[in-house]
């Protein structure tokens, strides 16, 4: 799955809209087919997708049950007590919600496994370029996202190091009630924030020394290229979109 990250970002946004618009059996069949097609094209082991579902399983079950119990009146009523009832329409709605959950989780997993975070950030910045016309400093934001990504592992390492140092001084992280835990985090957070402030200061000096004036007057080393496969994928999605609109119950 070597699509341009811009294509992926747009597609995933578009996908949410599609999931939201789809409301008939046929439209879901098309969506599921499209998702499965994308998964097959990515050649990724299905196990990863199941792993993505597990942490949300309880939420899905809860939602589905509540959705069923508060069924709207429609079709055959199977069960009725006070304001709770289970109807055919309710079961269908609950089913749709469950399918939505699965589709979105699968798409998320697919994107995560096939795209480097840096590419997504670059892609986002590239998509935001039109916003320049309304004076949004798109290039500066892109630069910041890239710097932030670059510092995440550095600060994670540092956080682990400080946690170990405080543990060696007798702090028990992860024990006691929430308030106690909040308190035990202070010896971790203060040094981490202080160090982050210093890093930011050092970094701004280093960037200046390396000739950085502002983000608008720079050339670009990392660029994204839009390939034919991006266009093709877009076409497939456009057809899918049209089909869903056709089969949608208005």
């Amino acid at each position, binding site marked *: 799955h070597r699509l341009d990250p811009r294509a992926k970002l747009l597609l995933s946004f578009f996908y949410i809209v599609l999931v939201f618009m789809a409301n008939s059996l046929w439209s879901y069949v098309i969506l599921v087919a499209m998702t499965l097609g994308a998964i097959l094209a990515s050649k990724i082991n299905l196990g990863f997708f199941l792993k993505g579902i597990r942490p949300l399983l309880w939420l899905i079950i809860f939602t589905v049950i509540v959705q069923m119990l508060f069924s709207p009146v429609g079709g055959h009523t199977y069960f009725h007590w006070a304001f709770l009832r289970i109807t055919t329409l309710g079961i269908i709605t609950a089913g749709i919600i469950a399918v939505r959950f699965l589709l979105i989780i699968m798409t998320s997993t697919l994107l995560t496994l096939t795209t480097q975070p840096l590419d997504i950030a670059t892609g986002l910045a590239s998509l935001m370029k039109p916003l320049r016309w309304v004076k949004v400093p798109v290039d500066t934001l892109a630069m910041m996202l890239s710097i932030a990504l*670059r510092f995440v*592992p550095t600060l994670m390492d540092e956080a682990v190091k400080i946690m170990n140092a405080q543990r060696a001084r007798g702090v028990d992280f992860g024990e006691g009630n929430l308030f106690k835990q909040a308190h035990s985090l202070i010896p971790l957070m203060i040094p981490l924030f202080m160090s982050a402030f210093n890093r930011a200061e*050092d*970094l701004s000096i*280093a960037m*200046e*020394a390396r*000739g950085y004036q502002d983000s608008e007057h720079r050339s*670009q*080393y990392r660029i994204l290229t839009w390939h034919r496969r991006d266009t093709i994928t877009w076409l497939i999605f456009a057809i899918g979109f049209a089909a869903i609109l056709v089969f949608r119950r208005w």
Partner: protein
Amino acid sequence: MTFKLEERGRRMDNIIEVKQLTYRYSDQERPALSDINFTVQPGEWLAIVGHNGSGKSTLAKCLDGLLPFSEGTVTVGGTTLTEETVWTVREQIGMIFQNPDNQFVGATVEDDVAFGLENRQVPRDEMIPRVQAALDEVGMADFAQRQPSSLSGGQKQRVALAGIVAITPDILILDEATSMLDPLGRTAMLKLVRQLRHDQDLTVISITHDINEAAGADRILVIDDGKLVEEASPQEIFSKGDQLIALGLDIPFVAKLKAALKTRGIVPPADYQTTTEMEDWLWRSLSNT
């Protein structure tokens, strides 16, 4: 005092001239630097030493216009540093700082090397070969796609050097650039700096505590408490023995050995400085029996 370049008779205009430089941090009463005067010649390797907090790093930042000093003048390559000329001055200087993590801007090695070129609006077609060549020069070409978190401190500093090679400055300032590296990383970095200096005719200013780094210099400036207290050749400085610790340098082994011998009643000649000279003298003395 004689300098190598003058001896060779190719005396040129100074590449850096610092006159009466004084700098005061806004929250402190005492100036961090007061009345500093010195010059640097093209191609020279100048070491600046002094203990922590003596003002060495402040001086380096002033040279690059990174700190707004109010008194004195700094002239780099004939350009006097002002708010208007600061970018012209920075064009000529490449700087490497102490903490390898806090100067790595790019998300990958190649992005980081390209950073300085992007700032100078070098077209992309030209950037690609320059980034590649710079990475080759520092021996990091195989790491082009790697992320900084997967590199050692020494490798990060080499990437920083590549970033400087790519923009071809005249002057390289090392602001304690080896102090956070392990001995292997430090040796590799110094070797690389010597090679780059040779290949690219760089003038090098290195701010350091490391005796090996200082030993490689043509001249040493000693800063103490914000003042320039001494300016001499490494040989002259290293002959100070015990006093070196107060200057922020280690005592060279020969000086330690001489001191130890003196306490045992053996007095070595004062002028033997290198380990080989010392070895020769000891061998002669011992074999004369």
